[in-house]
């Protein structure tokens, strides 16, 4: 009777937090030195940056369409696998890998929008754009697409961890005063900071960004002043998915853990960050993602690392009960 259950049809790999096992080496009971706190803070910073990259995709899309994109985690997975394929095919330098991954991520985002979101926008007035039926339909359709993508990746590559060439892992140690971090921490921080800065530039200074902000603040008004809503939505997906895909390959090379269902846990964390930040505020989402990253890596000092995920969900519940509009919800711009 015992054995694999047919109920596990949607489950592929058990997600037992490979995400954290690297940040909790030392267990809860060792005497904790100041250096160790600093080290955890550095790890928390890169973790938070990754969540921020993911959360931006959620937030942009939620701002424009008022829907949750459940396939965002799969964009992250696609990013990681694209990077892996590129590396094993012709081993270019990291920057080329990143550019290719970002390009493929943008394509994935556009494809996702065409397949899972466009067919459900039958009417373009604001009421039906943000209606409940539309939200539930796209929630389920993005979910369906994410199942198909994950299974397709699993058929193509197998469900186990992929082997990343050792020399490509971002783990050469760097001594920084009293603490030791790895190169991945620095690279993730730099890349994420560049992308966040670039995003800010795009949103504030370019036509695409201005139209994204216009549509997310008022779709009908944006239409009246001649903005092509459809094209703006595609751009939103492209920009958001670029960030998600970049996060995927960075984390993949940082932890050396690339597998088909890798996008699930970071996807949920980014989702939590988005909700904490007030659902459609980008600065809010970034700040909350950083808070989340820091508190998780600090939490691993005090509790076994497997419980660190609890921090995110605890934050989520506390935010929802005490700040139902998000910590940065009402006060800021929608994007």
């Amino acid at each position: 009777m015992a054995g694999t259950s047919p109920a596990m049809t949607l489950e592929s790999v058990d997600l037992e937090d490979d995400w954290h096992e690297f940040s909790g080496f030392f267990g809860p009971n060792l005497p904790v030195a100041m250096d160790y706190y600093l080290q955890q803070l550095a790890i928390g910073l890169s973790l938070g940056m990754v969540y921020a990259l993911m959360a931006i995709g959620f937030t942009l899309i939620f701002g424009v369409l008022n829907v949750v994109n459940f396939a965002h985690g799969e964009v992250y997975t696609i990013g990681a696998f694209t990077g892996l394929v590129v590396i094993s095919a012709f081993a270019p330098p990291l920057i080329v890998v990143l550019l290719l991954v970002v390009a493929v991520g943008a394509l994935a985002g556009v494809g996702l929008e065409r397949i899972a979101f466009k067919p459900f926008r039958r009417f373009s007035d604001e009421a039906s754009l943000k209606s409940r039926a539309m939200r539930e339909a796209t929630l389920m359709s993005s979910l369906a697409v994410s199942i198909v993508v994950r299974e397709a990746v699993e058929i193509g590559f197998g469900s186990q961890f992929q082997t990343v060439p050792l020399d490509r892992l971002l783990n050469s140690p760097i001594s920084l005063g009293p603490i030791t971090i790895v190169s991945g921490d620095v690279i993730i921080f730099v890349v994420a900071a560049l992308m966040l800065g670039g995003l800010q530039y795009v949103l504030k200074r370019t036509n695409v960004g201005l139209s994204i902000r216009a549509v997310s603040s008022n779709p009908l008004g944006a239409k009246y002043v001649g903005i092509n809503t459809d094209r703006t939505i595609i751009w939103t997906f492209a920009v958001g998915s670029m960030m998600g895909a970049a996060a995927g390959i960075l984390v993949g090379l940082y932890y050396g853990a690339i597998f088909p269902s890798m996008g699930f846990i970071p996807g949920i964390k980014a989702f939590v960050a988005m909700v904490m930040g007030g659902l459609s505020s980008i600065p809010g989402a970034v700040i909350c993602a950083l808070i989340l990253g820091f508190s998780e890596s600090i939490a691993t000092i005090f509790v076994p690392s497997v419980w660190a995920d609890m921090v995110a969900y605890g934050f989520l519940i506390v935010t929802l009960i005490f700040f139902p509009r998000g910590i940065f919800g009402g006060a800021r711009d929608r994007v």
Partner: protein
Amino acid sequence: MSDRLRPLLVVAAVLVLVLGVVPAVLGAFDRSYLYQVANLALIFVLLAASMHLVTGVAGLLQLGHAAFYGVGAYTAALLTTEAGLSFGWTLPLAGLGAAFVAVLVALPTMRLVSIYFAVATLGIGQMLYLVMLNWVPVTKGPNGILVTSGLTLFGYDLSRPASAYFVVAVVTLASLWVIHRLSHSYYGNALRSLREDDQCADAMGLDTVRLKIESFAVSGFFAGIAGALWAHTAGYISPADFSFPQSILILAMVVVGGLGSLPGAVIGALVLILLPEVLRPVGDFRNIIVGGVLFFSILLMPKGIIGEVSALDLVRRQLGGAWRGEGTKAGSEVGWR
């Protein structure tokens, strides 16, 4: 056919089908695997029906339903293995345990609306999943729990595949009957009014918060019952059975079948459980096909296989009750009795 006879015939037909034809067919093949698939299908019918009550009828998008299913399963499994209780005790206790957790969840989250409520249930579902996964001293963590004994009732051993199927079928049918009575009644209409406009319902004098918590508790209760059935029939439970993808699978059943439609939820559950089994020869591609079915059913049948309106019409005509007006005052002929 008289109006009085028809509901009896419909009920009799369902009973004959589930308790007569299906076990006969299963008996003809006599493979325990087929019994397990049938049990699983019935359990998910019950899960989809319980989610139908809270998500379809009361309109509270619930993304953590599998957690209540898990609470029920772990309650039943632990009561069996640690306390040595038999099925007659574990089944109701599992339901009550899950209902209790559901009320605890509902009390702080009920004032949240729409997407915020959905997100809160997702978070709580994940928390309960983490507890199942990591509270190793009690739940045995990822290793899961073997439930080898316990499917006994009044001293009879019911653990043979055929008798286990009958237990699951009877419990599921009884639960479906209760959910049917709840969702196709004035009470169900009150819940529907919450979904359409809870401020208006409040103004009409309904205690909206209480109704929401009640529907959540009832839904949690039946999810817990389903969990107990799963623990006893599968013989082995592990946290992976109650993770987020399972919640989504249940939600998918309700949506594919038709939000707010009980027959739809039942059919949706049967489709999404049996389709992967039928497609087993296709091997690796079956989950892709399930994803495709989900996608196209949303695209092409946005109201679901049996939409709410036609489901209500169907239930009204086939199972009778409302609009008959006999023995009631002239003014009360509209609506459900």
